[in-house]
């Protein structure tokens, strides 16, 4: 049977997109279940952000075997940035990493991200989408910091849910004072 590469790649591409979409849909369905279960007094935003906190912590834990200090804290920051990049890329985002002017900072830029669109589709606010991402990234980083005894920080400078067109985050090591 002759192999048709275009057909193979096209099928795989569709399957990948379907899987990414299913992943996002599943998150929001689980979120809806949690909101219904929590009752009318619960704040959906709190529930959504809490979910991202749990996911971030767990993903941080999953990544611990790949986190180390063999290349110093600069190397560690790059490992963390790449982990973030990988986590979002597999979900359909386009994420770029750029070194900052100082060796103590790295910029991570989300040039495209499907999550805000999914949030809108399933009735979550842009505020929740932004806070959820921030919480995910933060708890991931907290886990790594606790594991390696480091004090790395992350801050959001631009965000797609705020209408900035991209998400831009700075991963950095605070200057010693």
């Amino acid at each position, binding site marked *: *049977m002759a*192999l048709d*590469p275009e057909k*193979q790649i096209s*099928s*795989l591409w569709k*399957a990948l997109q379907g899987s990414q979409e299913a992943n996002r849909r599943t998150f929001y369905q689980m979120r809806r279940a949690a909101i219904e279960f929590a009752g009318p007094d619960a704040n959906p935003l709190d529930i959504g952000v809490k979910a991202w906190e749990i996911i971030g912590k767990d993903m941080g*834990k999953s990544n*611990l*075997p790949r986190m*180390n*200090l*063999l290349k110093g804290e600069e190397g560690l920051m790059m490992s963390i940035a790449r982990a973030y990049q990988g986590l979002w890329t597999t979900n359909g985002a386009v994420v770029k990493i750029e070194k900052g002017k100082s060796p103590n900072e790295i910029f991570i830029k989300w040039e495209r991200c499907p999550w805000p669109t999914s949030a809108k589709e399933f009735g979550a606010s842009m505020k929740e989408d932004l806070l959820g991402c921030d919480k995910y990234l933060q708890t991931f980083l907290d*886990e790594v910091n*606790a*594991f*390696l*005894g480091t004090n790395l920080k992350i801050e959001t400078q631009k965000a797609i849910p705020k209408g900035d067109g991209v998400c831009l985050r700075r991963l950095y090591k605070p200057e010693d004072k």
Partner: protein
Amino acid sequence: MGKLLFEWDYSAYPGAKKYPHLFKPIDIGNLTIPNRIKYAATEDNLNGADGFVTDAGVAYLRERAKGVVGGICTMQGVYMDEGRQGQGYVGQAAAWDDKFIPGLKRLADAIHEEKAVAACQLMHCGRVGAIETEYCQGPSDVPQRLRIFRPVQEMTKADIKQCLKEHIEATERLLKAGFDIVEISGIVGYLLSNFLSSYTNRRTDEYGGDIRGRMRFVVECIQEVKKVCGDVPVGIRLCSDELLDDVGGNTPEESMITYEMSEEAGVDYMSVTLGWQESIYPVISRDIPQGNWLHLAERAKQHLKVPVMMAYRLFVPELPNKAIEEGKLDIWEMCRPMIADPLMPKKVLEGTQDEIRHCVACNVCLARLFRDAPMTCYINPVCAHEWDPKYQIKPAEMEKNIMIVGAGPAGLECAWVAAERGHEVHVYDKREELGGTIIEASKAPYGDDELYGQIRFSKAKAEKAGVEFHLGTEVTPELIEEEMPDSVVLATGPNYIKGTAPGFDRANVVSVLDVIKGTAEVGDNVVVWGNRKPGIGVALFLAKQGKKVTIVGKEKKLGKDINPSFLWRYVGYLRQNKVTAYSDCDIEEITDDGVTVLTYAGYRIPVKADTVVSSEREANPILKDVVQQNSIELFVIGDALTPRNLSSAVHDGYRIGIRI
């Protein structure tokens, strides 16, 4: 000269002449040990879930005590807290109450009955503990790298004080039970090592800070245990190198400070170890050369006056004998070599070294413990069954004439066991050499040559037991009918097969055996069909020659037949040698350009290849019919029954050998 518990005279033994440094006495504290051999504390998961010693545990240790021929035999570490946060293994023995003393005494008595020195270890498992509870304890709540371990709860000062008290009370119980030496465990991620390491101790109080602060709890433990022990020697096991540089662990220099401080605190010996369960570097697997870590014992010797002992890839007596002679080591410790052959040092002493069943450093023993299963050994079928009469070699009720077809690991194991039982055993093989497919398997890189040790062992045992070999003789139906044995054991090994997909009949499809033998021509781009051990072995064999290798296999996971404690080594080497692996896939077609890989989901991946190596196997039913037609008792063992691994072959061989 200290107190000698048992008189041993080694002068008449050949081993004492060949390895004089192993069989000379040494003082540990006030105790004189007649030789330089120690069975090191090894968890076996053989005790009850409630921490009580069992018959299985006693029998296991008694056999090792017999093996050390007067040396030290150490019981596994006991946990000391009723809350069980110190318990790291489901079958770990306990010493948190006086009710455990009678069981512990059984162990000490068993060791003494074999005229060996009885040691017991105190082992709070720290961040790798809490097997039955939600949280484990540690100096700081540093997250676990491996999910298998529980979250860590930071110990308060009251917790530390309580833990110290538990060490003291457990020591009192061990002494009441009759142990001659008390050893404190501070290795691989257990509590004391957690306090020592800059990775896991982030405390800012007097139990943290610099290495002296982090050593405080260990020093207090040593001092308190020493107080209780009086004249009874106290030893400690500590890491000479944590191998945790990737997570900010101690430097080797800091480790030497812990050694010196332990000596100052009063320990009577130092057992040198290295690596943690969380380390990313291999330490005890067979890809590490024998004797690789002796420099660490030598370094410890430069920092200490007390005797220094070490295990870790010292599987042959030549190495420790020389190291002791050169002043690099004082005592040869063993764990894995004596799991594989409990009588190993005894055989060294008696000059029957060729009858040692050598450990193949696969670490299945470790893998079993982590899965809450009793200890087992890849190549020693009796391990952890020492108590069970069904596993012992007993004279046959009726002597039989047995024909064993195949001189591989299954056939040879069966042969020597059956012959020892009094049967007349004939082993046939069409090859001129013993070993079956282990001959080829042991030519794979990264230490797989050690697999052949099993063949040397069973050959020596078979020759001693009077097995007759008929090498270069292919067994035919006519030969069976001519010989008409009472029993036939088919240990022919598997059939190496080719797939049914188009192209498998091409000339560039070759057998794994021919590739390893060097009789097949292999191009630069190779696809290996089969993702079990034979496929992985040949892939590495070829990749080491600079070839681009891709593994394609039907199993869902690569290396399904390899235990996880060793698989990670192979996976690392495959990655290092840039071998691509497609699991849960098959070859759909072999073409002029290469191979079309078909995934489980129906996707197709083109892979360039000029050679396809087939490593897939199936059961081998050859000769089965003729044996049955002649109403001869039939046994099929090893890969002939169903293709598995060396361990299954050996275990099959033994089990049939004892019941035939």
